């Protein structure tokens, strides 16, 4: 009897679980959003409402009530971000109740996807337009094309020629860039003078670069180069772009057609390992050195050259307090390219207020806001901005060499492994670390994940 009772209670509990589960489940992100009903607010531009795309999930608000918006547009390592946040909040204070979340490049993808999957998406977020595959392939990004083309393409025409291509996938624009971003070198010229070397005006070959670092070490005793741990992957990534004899081979690798066992791929990683083994500050701990540690060491004259991002260069030089500085291009293994792309913005497909997100995005890519970035020394992607910084040209001198085609854009696994775990895994495990990449490449080539 007692046993029967237990079975009945257990069955009741399971039923209860299922009922609660059914009540709590809102389906997947898209459906749940759509069920909230309501139509989008009218387009701010007065054009036809392109928000009626299949992904959009507008949510109604009561008359007079401010729309609640969550933006993730503030990057801790960008000097203009905080200021822009304040200006945006002030500009929209009567319409939107905006909450800002800090943008962290290392966790951005995870954060954005978590909120999308939970159907509580961030309304507008910063992201790299060249690396949107992971969102586009999973229908997680709002198509911006109709908005750009509204009013005779007024918004589209405000951008510099071709820059929008970086966020275009299958003919549709999913992300808009606000600045061209690529790695560069900032050198303490006093140390370089002691070593009797200088950074060339144009891009340097890898071999010349390594020879220069060796000379700095030998003549001055300081560490030749400092690289923040989060930027360590730049070394193999740039080598993997430039090591090929021609564009066709480069594209074949970038689209996943060349195996990771190719001798040139191995050479690209070997070269990265050699750099870390010999020249990167502070030797053994180089793979975990933070940006602050690199900046302090550069300021103290412990390192001769530091890797940096062009958009941070002006502020970074100012913070170093050094006056005798030179700017150099990232070295290449052959082809005249540099890795990079752009910083930009996108709107999740299930954003609750797509029209409001678009309005804010338009403001964020307007001359009013982007002039603030220019004033901080960051080159931007739109027309109608001015600069009186004579060095601004130096911070954007390699923008034309940016090659956005990279293997990391083929599948999220490549992004995680190449950008997040390399060159560390190669340094510790050698060629066997490429097995995991080759396995992913084969899976992707076979059409699965």
């Amino acid at each position, binding site marked *: 009897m007692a046993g029967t009772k237990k079975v009945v209670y257990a069955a009741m*509990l399971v039923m*209860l*679980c299922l009922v*609660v*589960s059914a009540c*709590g489940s809102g389906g*997947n*992100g*898209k459906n749940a959003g759509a069920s909230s009903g309501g139509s989008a607010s009218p387009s701010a531009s007065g054009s036809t409402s392109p928000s009626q795309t299949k992904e959009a999930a507008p949510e109604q608000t009561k008359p007079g009530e401010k729309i609640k918006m969550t933006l993730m547009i503030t990057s801790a390592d960008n000097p203009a971000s905080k200021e822009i946040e304040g200006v945006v909040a002030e500009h929209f204070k009567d319409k939107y109740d905006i909450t800002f979340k800090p943008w962290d490049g*290392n966790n951005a*993808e*995870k954060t954005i*996807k*978590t909120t*999308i*999957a939970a159907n509580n998406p961030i309304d507008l977020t910063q992201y790299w337009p060249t690396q949107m595959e*992971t969102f586009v392939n*999973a*229908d*997680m990004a709002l198509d911006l094309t109709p908005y750009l083309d509204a009013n005779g393409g007024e918004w589209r025409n405000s951008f510099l020629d071709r820059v929008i291509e970086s966020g275009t996938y299958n003919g549709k624009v999913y992300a808009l860039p606000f600045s061209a971003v690529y790695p560069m070198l900032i050198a303490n010229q006093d140390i370089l003078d002691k070593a009797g070397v200088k950074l060339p005006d144009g891009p340097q070959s890898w071999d010349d670069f390594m020879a220069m670092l060796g000379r700095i070490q030998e003549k001055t005793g300081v560490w030749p180069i400092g690289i923040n*741990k989060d930027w360590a992957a730049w070394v193999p990534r740039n080598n993997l772009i430039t090591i090929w004899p021609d564009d066709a081979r480069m594209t074949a690798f970038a689209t996943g057609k060349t195996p990771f066992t190719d001798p040139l791929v191995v050479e690209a990683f070997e070269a990265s390992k050699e750099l870390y083994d010999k020249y990167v*500050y*502070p*030797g*053994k*701990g*180089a*793979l*975990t*050195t*933070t940006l602050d*540690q690199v900046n302090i*060491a550069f300021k103290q004259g412990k390192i001769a050259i530091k890797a940096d991002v062009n958009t941070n260069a002006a502020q970074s030089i100012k913070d170093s307090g050094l006056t005798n500085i030179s700017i150099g291009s990232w070295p290449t293994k052959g082809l005249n390219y540099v890795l990079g792309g752009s910083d930009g913005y996108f709107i999740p*497909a299930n954003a609750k207020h797509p029209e409001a997100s678009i309005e804010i995005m338009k403001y964020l890519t307007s001359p009013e806001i982007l002039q603030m970035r220019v004033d901080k020394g960051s080159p931007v992607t739109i027309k109608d901005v001015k600069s009186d910084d004579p060095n601004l040209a130096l911070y954007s001198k390699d923008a034309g060499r940016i090659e956005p085609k990279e293997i990391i854009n083929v599948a*999220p*696994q490549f*992004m*995680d492994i190449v950008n*997040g*775990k*390399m060159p*560390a*895994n190669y*340094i*510790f*495990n050698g060629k066997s*670390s490429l097995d*995991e990449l080759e396995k992913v490449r084969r899976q992707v080539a076979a059409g699965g*994940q």
Partner: protein
Amino acid sequence: MSRMEQRKSLKSSASSLRILGILFVLPSMLFIAFSMLVPIVWNAAMSLTTWNGMTAVKWTGFANYAKVFEDAVTVRGFIYSLQIAVVSSALAIAAGLLLALAIYKTGPKEGAFYRFVFFSPAMMPFVIIGFLFVFILSPDVGLLNSVLGALGLQNLQHAWLSEPGTVVWTIAVIGGWRFSGLVMILCYTAMTTIPSSMFEAARLEGMGYARQVRMIILPLIMPTVRLVTLLMLILAFKTYDIVFIMTKGGPGDSSRTVPVRMLDVAFQYNEFGYASAIGVLLTILVSLVIVIVQRLARGESYEY
């Protein structure tokens, strides 16, 4: 009132009491079902599917489980998690127990002071501890390497969080240090319940403190030690925050524990089914380890 009626009335009051009891329990049951059982059942069901977070769910049977064993990074993650769990739990229990035994012998005022000092790491958020140790363990300017250098022990200097041979051990030791205060407080509390008459009798027998520990204290606080061991193992297996703050699972995959790997797989690769399978296997592993530890630490309980 006839006996029959009396029995009926008793029965009806007993059943209304039972209904009232169920009504009282229902909110808690609903809460537990919603916050615990549903996610567990949901996770187990999802582990048999593929789902990228947006598109339709596809049934794949046990394919995700097979994939775990073919995925070297995940398998290594299980080893790292086990290593961290065992080392940090053992360290926390050994250090906590020794601290409790030492503090038990001090006077009330200094005892309170020491308890506060040694318990304070348990009160600190993991994020703070993580950042603190990133500075302490920095290879170039960190406190630990500076002290070792000043003592002339340069050969012991390491890039503690950068070398594959040291990073997991370092995280395990920090985890153990962090929880030692909690173990100390729990063991100390158990010791205070031992009647003083036992110690008086032991002293009359000529027993020193070491023998009192071995013959009286340890056997009597063993149920608490067993409980603490299970608690530590469960906490240590789930270690995510300190790993994420200090190394993000790196350099490379050198400290990519199961919770870190699970989140990578789910939210970077969009493979929620595979991540769920990893979660189910971690739950099974934790349960197995707990059963083994319970068996190993089984002993008699004394009433006093």
